[in-house]
């Protein structure tokens, strides 16, 4: 019997797990995919929003402003890269009133560090902007993080503190038995738990329905992105938004914490909850809209494109509620990443209110070693490590400079990677300019070796995503 089962290992579920791991609870995280951070967390804009977007008085506004305030400490504690790079909401002359309105709303939401900029100041800050832009809102608290890095660290820290992660656990039914719940997976596994946290992202409405709650629906909103080579990472220093529309914050141009340049997202409402296709229209929209704000973007430096789904709720605000021991989190669309620490704190408060938490652990370890610590070390420190473990002297991914030691670490530390994409998200191996062309056969070898599985059983991202069909010729 578990005390708490968290359904969905995205950044929200992960932050909740990390927050609850300090209590003396038997905790499990149930994830439908073969790895954590596979839903909206895998592919989004990676922005810690300052909090000027959401309507005054909304739960979104409250969570965003609080989450943004907490983010620096949370990322420091979990060893996750965080860059307070600031953001600009830019506008043409005819949009001046809208930019002003956003500024006012930010003030009303309690966002600190906002400033209205005139043309000259704006272009002095960011020389690559479209010269026709005449005004902007500067948000000095806006920052960037890597969403899956944060999720991996949060889940990893929860696991290091005793939480269990069950992968490929697609919840198919939830039954109430007296004071407890039985959560059933599609493959027949079951989990008994006293409390449930539904952080199932685009599937949160389906999971809610299994607990008898049909109050809201989630419409997946597709967002396509393009990622440019690291040579372009300094093209803009700040995150550049355009004045927002009903469908979201428009196409942004932003550096990433890893030094690439990110363009996107588009916004298309769809029915299929896992249709992450990119489209020709999407590419065209990104080219056109990004160019409205930033001039001469080197589109020939695109190294990859991808698509993520945002969980857009029917109520247009975050839904966070508790009933009969089930905490439901619905409609956690943008700014879900920014809000995640605050949502976790709020869930902790709700669970405390129904006496679900009990005493804190004495053994809880709050700090986590950064996943990328090796790269930050000095030459002498690296040589110390290489002397003890030669695998750290062997570069596998030449574009990103990732060593065998770091890849083995990703395959053996919580939450361990099991496939090629899992290694990529944890180490950046294969994420550079050659996109895994050189290193993927070697990474496949390492996965097979570390997990003791045949070479041909290694997948790209679990399930049927096989990479090789078997040997070219029989064994001898």
């Amino acid at each position, binding site marked *: 019997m578990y005390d708490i089962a968290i359904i969905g290992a995205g950044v929200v579920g992960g932050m909740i797990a990390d927050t609850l791991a300090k209590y003396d609870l038997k905790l499990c995280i149930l994830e439908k995919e073969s790895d954590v951070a596979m839903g909206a967390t895998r592919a989004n804009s990676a922005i810690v929003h300052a909090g000027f977007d959401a309507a005054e008085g909304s739960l979104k506004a409250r969570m965003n402003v609080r989450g943004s305030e907490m983010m620096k400490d949370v990322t420091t504690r979990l060893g996750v890269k965080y860059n307070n790079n600031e953001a600009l909401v830019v506008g043409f002359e005819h949009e001046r009133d809208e930019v002003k309105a956003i500024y006012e709303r930010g003030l009303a939401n309690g966002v600190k560090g906002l400033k209205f900029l005139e043309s000259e100041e704006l272009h002095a800050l960011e020389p690559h902007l479209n010269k026709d832009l005449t005004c902007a809102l500067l948000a000095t608290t806006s920052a960037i993080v890597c969403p899956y890095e944060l999720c991996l660290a949060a889940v990893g820290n929860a696991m290091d503190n005793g939480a269990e992660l069950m992968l490929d656990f697609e919840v198919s039914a939830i039954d109430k038995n007296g004071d407890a719940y039985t959560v059933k997976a599609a493959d027949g596994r079951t989990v008994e738990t006293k409390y449930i946290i539904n952080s199932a992202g685009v599937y949160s409405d389906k999971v809610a329905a299994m607990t008898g709650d049909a109050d809201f629906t989630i419409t997946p909103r597709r967002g396509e992105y393009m990622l440019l080579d690291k040579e372009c990472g300094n093209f803009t220093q700040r995150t550049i938004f355009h004045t927002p529309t009903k469908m979201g914050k428009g196409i942004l141009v932003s550096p990433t914490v890893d030094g690439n340049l990110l363009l996107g997202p588009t916004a298309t409402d769809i029915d299929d909850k896992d249709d992450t296709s990119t489209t020709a229209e999407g590419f065209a929209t990104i080219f056109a809209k990004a160019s409205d704000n930033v001039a001469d973007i080197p589109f020939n430096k695109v190294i990859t494109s991808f698509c993520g789904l945002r969980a857009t709720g029917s109520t247009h605000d975050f839904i966070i509620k508790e009933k009969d021991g089930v905490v439901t989190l619905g409609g956690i669309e943008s700014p879900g990443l920014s809000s995640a620490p605050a949502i976790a704190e709020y869930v902790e408060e709700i669970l405390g209110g129904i006496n679900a938490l009990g005493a804190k652990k004495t053994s809880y370890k709050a700090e986590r070693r950064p996943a990328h610590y090796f790269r930050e070390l000095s030459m002498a420190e690296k040589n110390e490590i290489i002397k003890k473990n030669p695998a750290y002297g062997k570069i596998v991914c030449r574009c990103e400079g990732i060593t065998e030691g770091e890849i083995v670490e990703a395959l053996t530390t919580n939450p361990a990677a099991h496939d090629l994409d899992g290694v990529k998200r944890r180490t950046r191996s294969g994420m550079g300019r050659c996109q895994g062309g050189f290193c993927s056969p070697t990474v496949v070898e390492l996965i097979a070796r570390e997990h003791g599985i045949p070479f041909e059983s290694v997948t790209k991202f679990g399930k049927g995503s096989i990479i090789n069909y078997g040997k*070219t*010729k029989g*064994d*001898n």
Partner: protein
Amino acid sequence: MIRELTCIVCPKGCQLKVELEGKNILSVSGYTCKRGLAYAETECTAPMRTLTTTAPVEGGGVVPVKTDKPVPKELLFKCMEVVNSACVAKDAKLGDVVVENILDTGANIVTTRNVQL
């Protein structure tokens, strides 16, 4: 009948024209070296190819191999079957014979590198 060929003897890839009457070659044009002429002639009568592939190594893995001279083109897949069921010794060196006189073609399958690096 005129048959047009791309010479595969060297990277120049000369465009050859072969005038044929049944199986008899009346003339060849477009070649720029003697080997090109020879290629045109065999290609129109009995086309030959060098096979390059890999062979299984004792204890696992593969090593690159080739036929040490061209074999009839229509035998390529049959040669593959033979090579795929061969077994190369762990200590084989570049040039070692893996299959002798494969399918009676007169060609041997030889390794093209040392198994041990």
